[in-house]
């Protein structure tokens, strides 16, 4: 069984989208982010104000909708779930700790903690025992009778953690949980989170404090809505990890101080202490381009770019780790097709993506390429390197016969009816981007 709890594929978020681009361009709060949250992870998201940290957390926790891209919640596409199903998912799987603790002012502390659990109609005695047990662990058992306005900030935050834990969630989302706390209470809270992580709870934490981030296992640094840097702690010391995080934050501050904008190439820089994951769990939606050749800038920005040069293939997998595939290690390449139906009334149409399995000596890398007419250049590139290509769907031949995207699609519709069957092809609503 897969360990993946949440998988985000090329997600983007635009607040107040301007379809006609009257303001010039849309502001991307999240810009083509890939993210995978596995069981037992303790990931921290850092970044300057307005970099999209909270937006990413809100999107991953199903509280906010996406503009483009997909999120898989335990393998189920979030866009296929209705509001009630999302509520059910949050109730069963997620726990939340917010910066402003968000306690309900008209409920006392006991009821605040119990609020998510009473949805499950648990036995009153059992629930009471559970609340008291958690309250004792968090040292808030003496304030159970009080109301939120009668408690201190630290107490309220611990109550928020207790509320997040009451349903034994698989994942805890923490949005700046220490934002309103003093250092003593912050460390107390983080010790609790660390303990929970050791017990197997998955934690996703947003913060701007390097010290807080040093309690995590992986740190992702967000900048302008994209993940810029990923650092894994592994078995290193917390101090070293903290220093590394601090360096990244400092580097970013200095970068902002002396340069007014980051160049297109800067976005490519990836900084990892050590790559943790290699393969992506499923087909990764990418745009392939050859270094030094002309490429489609729109597709480059919309999907994960995969760069091919003389010796290697370089890209970032869904875990945001930099992956370098040595071209000499590739045994063979399998090509396949995936159909997609965009349901748009009389303008409904099928589109086809090329699935590329790169089989190396030790691993298999799976890509779903969004390239259009330029796909043939990529295929020729592999052919020039004498890499065997298994093409059961005769994709190369079709590209040679019909170099234009429109003609090729029409041909596929005639010849590959098996790909267009219900359940085989993805059925999409082109406006909402929801799977139907």
């Amino acid at each position, binding site marked *: 069984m897969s360990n993946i709890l949440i998988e985000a594929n090329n997600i983007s978020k635009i607040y107040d989208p301007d379809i006609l681009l009257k303001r010039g361009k849309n502001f991307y709060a999240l810009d083509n982010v890939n993210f995978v949250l596995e069981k037992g992870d303790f990931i921290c998201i850092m970044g300057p104000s307005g970099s999209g940290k909270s937006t990413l957390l809100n999107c991953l926790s199903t509280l906010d909708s996406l503009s483009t891209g997909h999120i898989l919640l335990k393998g189920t596409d979030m866009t296929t779930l209705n509001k009630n199903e999302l*509520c059910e998912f949050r109730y069963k799987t997620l726990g939340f700790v917010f910066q402003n603790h968000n306690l309900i002012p008209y409920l006392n502390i006991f009821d605040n903690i119990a609020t998510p659990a009473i949805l499950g109609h648990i036995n009153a005695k059992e629930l009471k025992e559970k609340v008291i047990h958690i309250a004792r662990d968090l040292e808030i058992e003496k304030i159970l009778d009080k109301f939120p306005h009668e408690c201190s900030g630290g107490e309220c935050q611990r109550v928020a953690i207790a509320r997040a834990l009451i349903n034994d969630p698989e994942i805890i989302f923490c949005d700046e949980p220490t934002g309103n706390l003093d250092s003593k209470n912050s460390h107390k809270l983080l010790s609790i989170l660390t303990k929970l992580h050791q017990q197997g709870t998955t934690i996703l934490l947003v913060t701007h404090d390097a010290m807080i981030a040093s309690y995590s296992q992986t740190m992702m640094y967000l900048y302008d809505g994209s993940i810029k840097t990923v650092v894994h702690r592994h078995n290193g010391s917390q101090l070293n990890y903290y220093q590394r995080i601090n360096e990244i934050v400092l580097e970013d501050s200095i970068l902002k101080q002396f340069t007014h904008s980051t160049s297109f190439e800067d976005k490519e820089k990836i900084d990892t202490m050590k790559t943790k994951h290699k393969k992506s769990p499923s087909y990764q939606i990418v745009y392939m381009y050859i270094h030094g050749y002309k490429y489609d800038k729109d597709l480059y920005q919309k999907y994960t770019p995969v760069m091919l040069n003389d010796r290697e293939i370089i890209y970032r997998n869904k875990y945001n780790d930099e992956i370098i595939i040595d071209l000499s290690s590739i045994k063979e390449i399998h090509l396949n097709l995936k159909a997609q139906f965009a349901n748009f009334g009389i303008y409904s149409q099928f589109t086809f993506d090329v699935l590329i399995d790169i089989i190396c000596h030790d691993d298999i890398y799976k890509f779903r390429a969004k390239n259009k007419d330029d796909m043939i250049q990529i295929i020729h590139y592999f052919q020039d390197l004498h890499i065997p290509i298994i093409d059961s769907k005769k994709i190369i031949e079709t590209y040679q016969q019909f170099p234009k995207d429109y003609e090729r699609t029409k041909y596929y519709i005639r010849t590959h009816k098996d790909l267009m069957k219900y359940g085989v092809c993805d059925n999409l609503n082109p406006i909402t981007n929801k799977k139907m």
Partner: protein
Amino acid sequence: MFTFVKKVYKNRKKDYYILLIILTLIASFEFCSLAIYSSLNRISGHIITKLEFTSLPTLSTFVGLILSTFVLKYFIENKKQEFSILLLSGRKPKDLFMYVLYQFGFLSLFAFIIGIGIGSVFIIGINSIIKNFHFTFLFHYSLMDTIFIYLYFFIFTNIFILTICSHQFVNLDKNLVYYLNHKESSHNDGYKMYFSVFLEDQKKKNPIYNIILSFFVCFITIYSSIKLLDNHLASPFLILYYFLALIGIILIVKKTVPLLYHLLHNYLIKHPILLNALACFQDFSSTMMTLIVLNASLVPTVLFIVISSRKDTILQIIIMPCFIMILIMIVLCFVLRYSIYNNAIRKSVTTIYAIGYTPHQIQIIFVLKNMLFALFAILIPLLLFTQLSYIALIHHYLSIEVIICLSLSYIILYFMILIYIFVKENQSIKEVTNYVKYLNRS
């Protein structure tokens, strides 16, 4: 200072427009009531008769005064942080008076002036309606007298507001740091835990006193209500039972409902919607308590004045505009207070949604809360009102047409209020469940 006030006006245009509309309407009703008072004063007759006649417009004018003070006080209280920033930037408390005068003095002066015009139109309207009903009595008021008393009320309202402000400014000056960092939070003091059900070793507080009190309150309320059904009750007893019933209802809302919440806590935690609805109702009723009490006491009091007076056709003419004006003023203040409450509750709704409650469940919570509110704040006063109306009818104080008209205006206005609450809450639920910003904003 003036530029700052202008900028504040510009940035919160909508709030100030609503405030101006409410103040203008209240001022118009105040003027209208004073005009009725002035015309009744011109009738020749015994002083007691005059007092009986003028008591209704006087009541209506004082309600206007209380409500305009309530509205202004509420607005000024919400400006604590603005005042503290002004103090921080070197202004003296004396300057703050000028600031309040610039902001609210102008608004109330504006409302005062427009109120004269609209109030005069109301009086013309009332007179033409009376003519249509073929009554011989019309309200012929002295404009100068009315404006003089009206001006007196205006000055009194502003002095009252400045007195409240001076108390607030002294407190601000003393605890500037506290108010700068102060976050508005809901303090529902009426809802306290009577005993700890959570910890075995904790000393239990004894709720026996509250249980006895609640039983007593329920008994008194039911007993008084049954006694009120007696149509031949003497006036002093009628007053006694009426006030006992009224106090009983208020105490049930303030004491018995919270006690029941805790006594039935074990049952309630199996029913998340009921638990949340009850807790939400307690919060809502404590927020709206002033207006609930005002409504519950004023509506039947109007009839009480009629019953206590001698039978006269003029009273039937006076009661209609005064009663409707009082109702509209309460409803206006209710709308204003509710719109502020509705904004405050949004964060709680988003939190409940985030932790797994579906929008439908949240909707049911609010519907249950509103049903309880409608029962205690609208239906029970209506029942008391109906009972008093019946007494007024069988003793020929009021005609059936007047009673129907009064009852209909009550039902229509409060039905509109309930619809307004329902629509606003549905809008809020829809908005907060679609827009995550409410979770992250402090």
